[in-house]
């Protein structure tokens, strides 16, 4: 076991503290998890998004609970009730804009968090379950965001719901019943709005539950770090408080400042003008486009324009779209490399950035009409997306020659600071050992 023993450092000093500790040691759990918990000393800012995400979940739930006090889930009143919130509820505009833009920044943070995990190989053994729990959270977030977007009952809400629930009809036999179950009828209407509201209120609490499991799994295996080397000795780590706490707090406030800029100065930049038009089942908007965080998947959906044997183009598109998320779940087993971090994998690093750029490009394609050259580009881009997971990940692990991996986190840190002219002779002695390659 290389994992550092970090339990048992909590000693309650007050009488009340001792009394509680003997009965339900919640303060001990908190202390061990968020104070004494050892984290690698070399974590960079890419590792701060986990904390940021948990704060955003709290922001979304708090603003959402207030909004739900004033919102009316009724097809004839929903739009008006949102405008009532914007105009007449005290600080209602603030709650609404925080919630709406909060969703965008929640996704921004989750994408950075996921990309960080891919880059540093955070999904590899023994953290497969940790990764899968993260994928489940992401999936729940997508469902929550989609249903939340329907609630204001604007044009894009209505038609987005129509298009997305329409996906399910692609599946033979079970497709139409699933769609009718989702809609509560044959078309998007009042029953749809009511069940979406109910689920939109439920799912965030399910997310919170899975987040607890995610954090639990994290605290069992310990965090990865940019070197990908497991913690081996006490010099590799620093206590969570104050080190990680202060760094996370700084990153959080910077992220919140960007978020606040959009909330207060450009609250509608990330939204659609069409959603300020009340839903009208008789008028289809010229372009039905999902929110940006769904655009890459929308592009994949529309990229399949050809039948594959018995699979129609429509079903193929839906399978490809669901597959593009499903593939994330098996990433821990697709990557065959023994080296965890991209820092020591020159080829993986290259392909990673190709993947990132390609994902952004897919997003752009998702915002374009599915015609002409865009279709071919979307097909190419979809192939690159799946190619990264299904070809590059398994093959590269077998053929790539990784760079020399340092023996320990401490060694990596000291090598780097020695390189930049710093260095601590005191700790340096401890790592003077072996340069193997």
């Amino acid at each position, binding site marked *: 076991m290389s994992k550092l023993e970090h339990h048992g450092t909590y000693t309650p000093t007050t009488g009340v503290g001792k009394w509680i500790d003997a009965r339900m040691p919640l303060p001990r759990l908190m202390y061990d998890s968020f104070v004494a918990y050892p984290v690698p*000393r*070399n*974590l*960079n*800012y*890419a590792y701060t998004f986990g904390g940021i995400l948990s704060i955003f979940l709290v922001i979304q739930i708090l603003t959402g609970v207030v909004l739900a006090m004033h919102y009316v889930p009724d097809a004839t009143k929903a739009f008006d009730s949102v*405008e009532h919130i914007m*105009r007449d509820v005290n600080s209602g*505009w*603030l709650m609404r*804009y925080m919630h709406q833009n909060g969703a*965008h920044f929640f996704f*921004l943070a989750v*994408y*950075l968090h996921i*990309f*960080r995990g891919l880059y540093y190989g955070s999904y590899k053994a023994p953290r497969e379950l940790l990764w899968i729990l993260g994928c489940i959270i992401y999936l729940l977030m997508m469902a929550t965001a989609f249903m939340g977007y329907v609630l204001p009952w604007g044009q894009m809400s209505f038609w987005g719901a129509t298009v997305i629930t329409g996906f399910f009809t692609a599946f033979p036999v079970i497709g139409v019943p699933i769609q009718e179950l989702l809609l509560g009828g044959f078309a998007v209407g009042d029953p749809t709005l009511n069940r979406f509201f109910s689920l939109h209120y439920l799912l965030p609490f399910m997310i919170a539950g899975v987040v607890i499991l995610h954090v639990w799994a994290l605290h069992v295996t310990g965090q990865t770090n*940019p070197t990908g080397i497991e913690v081996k000795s006490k010099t590799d780590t620093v206590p969570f408080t*104050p*080190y990680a706490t*202060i*760094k996370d*707090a*700084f990153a959080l*406030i*910077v992220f*919140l*400042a960007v978020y*606040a*800029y*959009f909330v*207060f*100065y*450009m*609250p*509608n*930049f990330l939204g*659609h*003008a*069409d959603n*300020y*038009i009340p839903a009208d089942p008789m008028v289809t908007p*010229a*372009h039905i*486009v999902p*929110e*940006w965080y769904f*655009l890459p998947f929308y592009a994949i959906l529309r990229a399949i324009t050809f039948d594959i044997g018995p699979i129609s183009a429509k079903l193929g598109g839906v399978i490809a779209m669901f597959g593009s998320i499903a593939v994330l779940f098996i990433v821990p087993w697709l990557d065959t490399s023994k080296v965890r971090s991209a820092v020591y994998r020159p080829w993986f690093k290259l392909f990673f950035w190709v993947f*990132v750029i390609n*994902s*952004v490009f897919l*997003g*752009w394609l998702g*915002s*374009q*009409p599915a015609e002409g050259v865009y279709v071919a580009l979307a097909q190419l881009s979809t192939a690159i997306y799946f190619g990264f997971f299904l070809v590059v990940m398994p093959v590269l692990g077998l053929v790539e020659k990784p760079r020399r991996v340092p023996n320990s986190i401490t060694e990596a*840190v000291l090598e780097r600071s020695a390189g930049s002219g*710093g*260095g*601590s002779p005191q700790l340096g002695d401890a790592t003077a050992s072996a340069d193997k390659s």
Partner: protein
Amino acid sequence: MKNLVVKLGAAAIAVTVMATGAWAASAYPKNKPREQDWSFAGPFGMYDQAQLQRGLKIYAENCSACHALSRINFRNLADLGYSDDQIKAFAANYEVEDGPDDFGDMFFRPATAADAFPSPFPNQEAARAANGGAYPPDLSLMAKARAPIRGFPAFVIDPFRNYAENGPDYIYSLLTGYKDEVPEDVSVPEGLWYNPYFASGTALAMAPPLFEDMHEFDDGTEATVSNMAKDVSAFLMWTAEPHMDERKQLGFRVMVFLLIFAALLYLSKKQVWSRVEH
């Protein structure tokens, strides 16, 4: 490794920005809205009450013949600098339906500050019947509901220059954008008016609504088409976003707080981490 953060950040900005979803290609409007100077543009921009008052006058004397403004109550006009008495007197010019009375009948009474602007037509069908089949939309949210796609690279730059006036720019451009001379490749159906700034076609059913000197303003503002279009666009921005001033004022305090807090946290972080190589 800080490099990675920078790169991830750049990628993130690109994605976010793409966001607007925006950018879906569209043939209309043919001409992009012309950007105007607005008193409410920018982080410190506030509504100009005199301009909103002129806009209200134009709405009340012109637009309201066909367009509803149902999300605005007379009491909201306090934002424009009117006193309670002025609002009461203004509201009393309008008749609203109320009831039923003790006999079960509906009746009309003068509006009060608590009432919304009455709509010119009882329903969409009546509005269409009176307007040759076209439906004059409710204007309450128009400045947020009409925001033509910005396109690349404008939408990337917009957050950096804090451009959020696409809606009023659109309304202004539309109101001043009617052209008598129709290009040869455009056919304008009978009864419609050519306007290359229109969001969903080349022509619309609304005739040019503003004419030189059709109003007289107490503050001596010249009643040019351009001035009036600007005033009514600003007014519609206010009807769509009545709390904008409050939003920006609170935003300033929040930003100052966050930036000072961030600076303090950064210094604390430096201090804490100076004890350890990392």
